[in-house]
Structure formats: structure tokens, C-alpha cells
């Protein structure tokens, strides 16, 4: 099973976590951006063939939210975006 490193509990089984989706840029002020950028923010997420940064919630553990880089080709948790798993 995939192991996710929790900063408090160490590596724990994926089944202890809830998935929180890929990390997106922070929400722009809709009034300050044009329609195209606004709808792009609403509907698009990074979809890399390689490491993606994502949120996970250690719900069946200590309850913290954390982010990891996970390689979408292998499901390996990697250190950084350019770290091929």
C-alpha cells in the first residue's frame, strides 16, 4: 500500500488518509482578473505526467492536512517536482 509521510506520525498507510485534490494556485480575486483567467482557475488543475503536488488529510490519524509530491506514473511519493520517481 502507498505510504504517505505525515509530519507528525511518520510514514502511514494511504488508507488512513483522505485525498484533498491537487494543489492549485491561490484563488484570484474574480474582479481583478479577466474572465478567461477566472474560468481557467475554476476548471483547470495541473495534470502532469510526473510529480503532482496534492493535499491529503490524515483523518484516521492525527487529523492534520499535509501536502506531498506524488509521481502520477508510479504513485511514488517524491521529494520535489523535478524528482523523478
Amino acid at each position, binding site marked *: *500500500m*502507498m505510504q504517505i509521510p505525515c509530519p507528525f506520525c511518520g510514514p502511514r498507510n*494511504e*488508507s488512513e488518509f483522505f*485525498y484533498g485534490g*491537487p494543489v492549485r494556485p491561490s484563488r484570484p480575486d474574480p474582479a481583478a482578473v479577466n*474572465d*478567461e483567467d477566472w*474560468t*481557467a482557475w*475554476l*476548471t*483547470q*488543475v495541473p*495534470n502532469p*505526467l510526473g510529480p*503532482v503536488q*496534492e493535499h491529503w488529510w490524515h483523518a484516521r490519524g492525527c487529523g492534520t492536512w499535509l501536502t506531498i509530491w*506524488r509521481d*502520477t*506514473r*508510479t*504513485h511514488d511519493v517524491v521529494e520535489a517536482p523535478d524528482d523523478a520517481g
Partner: protein
Amino acid sequence: MKQHYSALSLLRHGINRHTTWAPAWRSPPLKDHYDVIVIGAGGHGLATAYYLAKDHGLTNVAVLDRGWLGGGNIARNTITIRSNYMRDASIPFYVKSVALYEAMTRELNFNMMHSKRGMIDVIQNYPMMRDRRRRQHIMDIYGATYEQITEAEIRRRIPALTGGGPDARLPVVGGYVHTDAAINRHDAVAWGYARAIDAMGGEIHQQTPVTQLLRGPDGRIAGVETPRGVIRAPKVAVAVSGHTTTLTETVGLTLPLRTMNLTAFVSEPVKPLIDVIVNCPDAGFYLNQSDKGELVIGGAPDTGQSFRRDIKQTVFEDTVSAMLSLFPSFKKLKFLRQWGGHLDIAHDASPIQDETDVPGLFVTAGWWGGYKAIPAGGLTLAHLVATGRPHPLMEPFGINRFRHLDYVMETGTTTAR
């Protein structure tokens, strides 16, 4: 020239010990220019090339695949063909696709082993019953068939379904039958189209991965780059299921798609046991029995984006335990194989078929349950590529719907939901 297939031809070639069959399609030399390049020799790419030739007379067309013909998701799916969708925009499209599948054996002179066996949705809570009833009323408008049946009738038609009794945590409360639903042979779909495309003059090039889309100085699409050289064309259609964003990003295009891994597994062959497609959305799995006797079983996709084509142990265990809650006798079954396929799904779970912001570059993507959509998806994309206008059945599914927040939120996309 295309050899006609029939009982007589089988006999004739059989007498010659099957040494006289012509190859079903040629392997012509790769040219450096075509009128249209279709990327991806899966169901959607092949169907598109077929309709480009058949409906629009466009035969200077090359279908390129990085692997072999029909080796992508068309070979990895659980072949459920159905039209029980939820939205007014979706249902007519799928009704058309189901009808095209029914006519395909004759049209392509290739045995699709089409089996219109129907699908039963086994429902285990009342809100879901109401949801299905709403779906029934919408489907009625478009001529797709969806009928409510009782729990007793479900158990009569699926004797192996012995779980979900009154003491279960989720007792079976009733169900719906979708009589239009069918399964067929996925290889035959790919091969039948390939043979028909070849006979009309189109070309299929396997082992030809596209590494980069190329734009001309005017910003239009100019062709594609492959390890076999640059191939030019004024029109390029991307039908690569799962890898759409990987390719469109090479020309700086982003799309509201994410790639996910969906998995399935099969049991050892057993005697005929189940003659319908069984879908259990509340338990979270679906199954059918193949002609060979294997049970073909699928469940939920992996959590998070994935380009991995393998099943996760957690998904496998969850699906098996869901299945055993309704089919406890399957505990004795042994499993033979498991696999996955990566598919892209759009922000609103509906397909995207459109010309992109790069003129001449077309995409057909977001085909989550897109096997059933192959014939109609090819028909509509060929129409768009040839005429420059969307086919009426696909009009609601353009890219601009995201810019106008005019989503087609489709809960009918996944069977297990």
C-alpha cells in the same frame, strides 16, 4: 482490396488450410503529408478516420499510434454499451451510439459478437431509487428504455445475487433494467474499423508516437513530430484518451481535464451464471460474464490523478468485499488477471470535442466511459473536422462551455455511481 467475410469464405479458406486470407489492412510507407492526421488508433481515432472516409470522402488520412492498433483503453475496458445518462444533452448522443453499435456487424462485415443482454441496476437505498426514477423520466423523452423492477424480480433474474437481504446493512430495495444495454467484442471494433478504413484508402501507422504538435508561423496547426520524422497536415485530431493534456501542452494549450486510473479484473471461467450486466452503484462495483465464462468485474477509480495502468491493492480489496456483500458465493472464485487504464475526465464529467484555440487542431477527450461512445464520437468528430462545424449531437460539448460556465454536469458518466 477488402476480402468479404462470410460462412462461405470461411469454408473456402478453410479448405486451403487458411493460407489464402489477405491481410485485413496494409502497412503502407509513411508519407510526409496528409490531409488529416488522427493521433491515436483507439476506438475514437479509428471511428473518426472511418467516418472521414465514409461520410466525407476524406481518405488521405493517417491514423498514428505510439503502440499497436487497439492496444489502449479500447483493449482494457469492460465493454458496457448503454445510454442511461442523465442530461438532455447526453442521452440523444448515447442513444445514437448504441444504435450504431447494433448495426456495426453488418456495416463493417465483421462479427462484433454483439450481445444485447440488458443491464440491471441493483439499488440499495431509497434516494438512489428516486434518482433513477428521475433518470427514467428524462430517458423516456429520448426513447432510451429504463424500467423499474422489484427486488423479487432482480433475484429471479440474477439467482447468484443472494446477499443484500432484509438483515443486511444495505438491503436491496429494488432496481432498474436498461434493456438497450449490450456488450460486444472490443478487438473486433478496432479491427473492423481498421479494415474498413484501409479498404477506403486511409492509412494506419503503428509504433509511431507523436512527441510534439507543430504550429505554423500563422499559428495554425502544421503537423506533428514523431521519431519517424515530421509529418505535415493542415488538420490534426487528438484522440489519445488520457494523454490529451500531455500533447496539447506541447503547443501551450491547457484543458480542464485530469487523468485517472480505472481498473478491472477477471475470474477464472465458470459455467453460465449471469446473463445480464449487473451494476451495483450503492455497493460500488459492476460485473458481467464473458462468453468464455469469466466474470469481468470493475469498481471505483484510484484516488488522485494517475497514469499508472495497474490495480491498487486497496481498490482491488474494496471492490472484492463490495462484491461479496451481494454475491457471497463468489468467495470461492479465483482471479486470473487484473489491469488498469488511464482516462481523462473533464471538470463536469462530460466529454470535450471541439476545435481548439490552435486553428486546425481538434480534440476529442474526457471519454471516461467512452467505449460506448466510439461510433457516435467518431461520426461527430469526422463531421467537425470535415465541415468545421460541430455535429448537432456534440454541440453542447465544446470547450467554450467552461468559459461560459455552461457545464453539462453528468452523473450518468460512471456506472458505479
